[in-house]
């Protein structure tokens, strides 16, 4: 294991984060705050409680998940796409590193950034709505697991993309609709019966539901299924990355 390489990549990526702090930290926090103002305070005050939780508090876990997914994907995909685009990837390919070091460095940095962001949003939310966290350990576990999993997913997108359009198409066309339909703003019990069934094919439902359970002890699906779902997705991403590096797909001709 080349520990120096992991540290070098991690530091490099974290430096990129702090260099672009407005874009990578400040702007997601601001846009989430706007959600809290609009949905939590303005509209939420006219809505009833859901399972005994005020609407403003109900949407907090979903909103954090929303940012976490988007930012994890975009951080990690940009992190590996930029060297490909700029041509500096040659150095990574010629270095004595395996996919393990590369993934730990890039995905580790992207996930760190996402967790920082999640915590920041959580703190910001406190300014708008009171909330409690019933299971702090599980809350943190969901936060970290989701950040890692979707950073891995973003990393795969960054490896796969060979132009900027491809880099954006999955986050915009697939992930954003799934997160909005994933129960961030509503409980799936509020949907018509057919949609209640269909929505179970949306992986984001399990993330939001599990994460919300760690806050308020309420969930749309069994929390154990949520945990299994996220671990399953994590493993799938790991296998995909391992396969990409083993075959050299899109990296080594």
């Amino acid at each position, binding site marked *: 294991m080349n520990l*120096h390489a992991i540290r070098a990549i991690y530091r*490099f990526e974290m430096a990129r984060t702090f260099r672009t702090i407005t874009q990578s930290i400040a702007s997601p926090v601001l846009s989430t705050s706007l959600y809290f103002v609009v949905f939590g305070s303005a509209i939420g005050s006219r809505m009833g409680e859901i399972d005994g939780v005020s609407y403003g508090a109900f949407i907090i876990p979903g909103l954090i998940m929303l940012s976490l997914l988007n930012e994890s994907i975009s951080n990690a995909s940009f992190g590996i796409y930029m060297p490909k685009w700029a041509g500096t990837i040659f*150095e990574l390919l010629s270095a004595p590193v395996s996919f393990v070091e590369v993934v730990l460095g890039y995905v580790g940095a992207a996930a760190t950034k996402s967790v920082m962001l999640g915590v920041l949003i959580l703190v910001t939310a406190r300014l708008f709505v009171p909330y409690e966290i019933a299971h702090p350990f599980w809350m943190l576990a969901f936060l970290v697991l989701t950040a890692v999993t979707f950073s891995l997913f973003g990393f795969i997108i960054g490896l796969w993309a060979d132009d900027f359009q491809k880099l954006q198409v999955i986050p915009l066309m697939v992930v954003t609709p799934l997160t909005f339909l994933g129960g961030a703003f509503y409980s799936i019990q509020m949907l018509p019966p057919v949609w209640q069934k269909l929505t179970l094919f949306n992986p984001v439902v399990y993330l939001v539901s599990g994460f919300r359970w760690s806050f308020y002890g309420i969930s749309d699906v069994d929390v154990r299924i949520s945990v299994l779902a996220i671990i399953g997705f994590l493993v799938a991403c790991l296998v995909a990355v391992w396969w990409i590096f083993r075959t*050299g797909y899109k990296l*080594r001709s």
Partner: protein
Amino acid sequence: MSSIISVRQLDKTYRSGFRALRGIDLEIRRGEIFALLGPNGAGKTTLISIICGIVNASAGSVEVDGHDIARDYRKARSLIGLVPQELSTDAFETVWATLRFSRGLFGKPPDPAHLERVLRDLSLWDKKDSKIMTLSGGMKRRVLIAKALAHEPRVLFLDEPTAGVDVELRHDMWRMVRRLRDDGATIILTTHYIEEAEEMADRIGVIDKGELVVVEDKHVLMRKLGRKQLTLTLQSPLSGVPSALADLPLELAQGGHSLVYTFDAQAQETGIAALLRRLGELGIEYRDLNTSESSLEDIFVGLVHGGRREVAA
């Protein structure tokens, strides 16, 4: 002397079907400066990219200091530094940060003293805190060299290092290459500038259409394939080569004011004496005569374009 790099039966066919390398066998000796010459698209960069781990080989094997580049890639790659042809650099990083990154990536603990030495050698020390995008093209080239040297490689690949580089940097670079060689490093360079290979290299390999046409000690190559020319400055100009001399490899130059005779420097009988005698018989007088040896460039052009002459090793 033992080989630091052994390339055996290396073959590369790209997915497009283009066969870039055809059964390359090559031994690079420890501590030499080896120049790889060839026209565009001959396979120079493909060969280097395979040895450095950027491109996968289709068949064949490569060992770096006894380490197979596929099975034992960590050991093999940690010995190598690569300066690529393209000016691919991070735009927003500082020179210092990018060097520290390179060193770490190749598994070496931080060593600010070494990095400082590298930067000073390349006249980059006062730019260490500059963002790379603010540097000129020549400076970026220096940064790429510094990055390649950051982890103290034993083998340095320079892919077209002097393309688009000013004279000063070129001289700095060759000074540095010689110093590295004196420290025991092996240097492999590709170049379009044949004078460079002629000036720098110990051995020369010529690659064309994916095949190594010749690998030879520079001096041996130039002696073996070199041709000499005898130029006679004439007393009075000729309008054409006299028909009595049509059997000889003669050409008129400078508007008929000089006569050029090409001969094989290695031949037993150069034919000079006979030529001069026959000129005397024809009454052609000359004021001056001098001979010149062909350059590596002439040899190279002869090898690559003038059909492959068989070269006995």
